């Protein structure tokens, strides 16, 4: 028992590169700006909706949050953008990071408290809440840290929980019969794109897709047991799935896609990009020579391969 706890503890606090946290943070904050300004704007328009449609969620009841007004949505929208841009400088990561977290969550609350809750945006709260706990982290930092490990682990866990618990929700709300139901037909009828209509002519494709999706969601935690190389492949497979979903019914779980990046050696990609921009080998650009790989050796081999590649 004690050994199991110790192993879990060590797994939660596996030292991971600070540069990875810095890179993920940058992506998360950039996403907040894009999301607030362009992707998820229903909260913004709720400023103009009559308060008669306001339906407080538990969070709103506990915190006594009011119905939206034009002033409130303006403050939240531009406050989020300003705080996220300021946080992207890397300064005051905790204060600015948590300001963004509060602003973004409140803005989502405004979007969701008018009768419709989107089911894909909850895991992003974990990234916003926990990435600031790492404190200062620079894009070229070569150290690994236990705080970075915990934050990245939490983001990974939340991202995978999204899949696993959505399989559970299918069983809870749709029953075990969900896999044999016409749920995907319904989705395509309601919001299918022109190039998804042929699926309705061949309904077994959508039926089979439900089995594949359900199995993939239920087995998603296996990603934690895989080698670095296979982990990247699984993340790539999930991205392909989300791209297909978007092509068929124009639904994409955008914040969740950003979360999935926590599985990737982002600091190595960032170093490659920097090296290419500056026209010099990746090593000097900050590719961590000794302390980079999160877990296991495969990452190290690939990293040295990347450095050689950019040198040429």
């Amino acid at each position, binding site marked *: 028992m004690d050994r199991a706890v110790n192993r879990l*503890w060590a797994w*939660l606090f596996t*030292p991971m590169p*600070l540069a990875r946290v810095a890179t993920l943070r940058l992506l998360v904050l950039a996403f907040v700006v894009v999301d607030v300004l362009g992707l998820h*704007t*229903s909260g*913004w*328009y*709720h400023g*103009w*909706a*009559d308060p008669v*449609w306001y339906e407080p*969620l*538990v*969070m709103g009841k506990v915190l006594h949050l009011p119905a939206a007004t034009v002033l409130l949505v303006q403050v939240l929208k531009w406050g989020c953008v300003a705080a996220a841009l300021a946080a992207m400088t890397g300064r005051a990561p905790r204060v600015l990071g948590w300001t963004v977290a509060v602003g973004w969550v409140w803005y*989502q609350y405004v979007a*969701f408290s*008018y*009768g419709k*809750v989107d*089911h*894909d945006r*909850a895991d992003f709260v*974990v990234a916003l*809440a*926990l990435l600031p706990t790492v404190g*200062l982290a620079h894009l070229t930092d070569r*150290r*690994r*840290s*236990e*705080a970075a490990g*915990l934050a990245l*682990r939490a983001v990974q866990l*939340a991202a995978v*929980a*999204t899949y696993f*618990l*959505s399989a559970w*929700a*299918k069983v*809870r*709300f*749709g029953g075990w019969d*969900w896999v*044999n*139901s*016409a*749920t*995907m*037909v*319904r989705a395509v*009828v*309601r919001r299918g794109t022109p190039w998804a209509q042929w699926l*309705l002519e061949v309904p077994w494709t959508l*039926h089979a897709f439900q089995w594949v999706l359900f199995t993939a969601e239920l087995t998603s935690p296996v990603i934690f047991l895989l080698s670095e190389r296979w982990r990247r492949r699984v993340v790539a497979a999930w991205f392909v799935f989300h791209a297909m979903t978007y092509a068929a019914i124009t639904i994409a*779980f955008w914040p969740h896609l950003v979360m999935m990046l926590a599985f990737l050696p982002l600091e190595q990609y960032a170093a490659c990009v920097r090296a290419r921009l500056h026209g010099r080998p990746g090593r000097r650009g900050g590719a*961590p*020579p000794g302390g980079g790989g999160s877990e296991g050796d495969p990452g190290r081999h690939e990293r040295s391969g990347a450095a050689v590649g950019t040198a040429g």
Partner: protein
Amino acid sequence: MAYPVDVETGVVRLGPAAKAWRAAVVLVLTGLFCAGSLVGDDHWWPFSPWRMFSTSQAPTGTVWSTGIEVQTADAPGKWVPAPLTPGNTGLNRAEIEGRVPQIQADPSRLGTLARSHSELRPASAAWTALRVVRRQVVVVDSKPTGEVRAEVLAQWTAP
């Protein structure tokens, strides 16, 4: 709080207290997300169940989708479909679909959509009447038959 500047590589460790509160936060979040999935509902957001596309749809039956139709001062008496989008009415389709019973109990609620529309789109013609229409697409063996039934659920006319 600044890290030692002379250490370029290596591992930054956490003390026991720093580890304890972080682990506690992870544990609490795990508990809330699991509880939300087990017994929670949408009102628990962000700890609500992840129920995207979780409902079962019978392979034979109807798939319905709700929309609005409006009359404008420009063309009185003529119903035309209007986009039920946040940019047009302040609310989206799902938010109206979920509130059909309340709308039927008090159709004057629909008047607030016309007001929001004229604030959001001051350049376009004001809506003088608005009705909620449900289209039902008949599906047999997971395949739409082409039959569509339309039904007016509620209607509002400007006083």
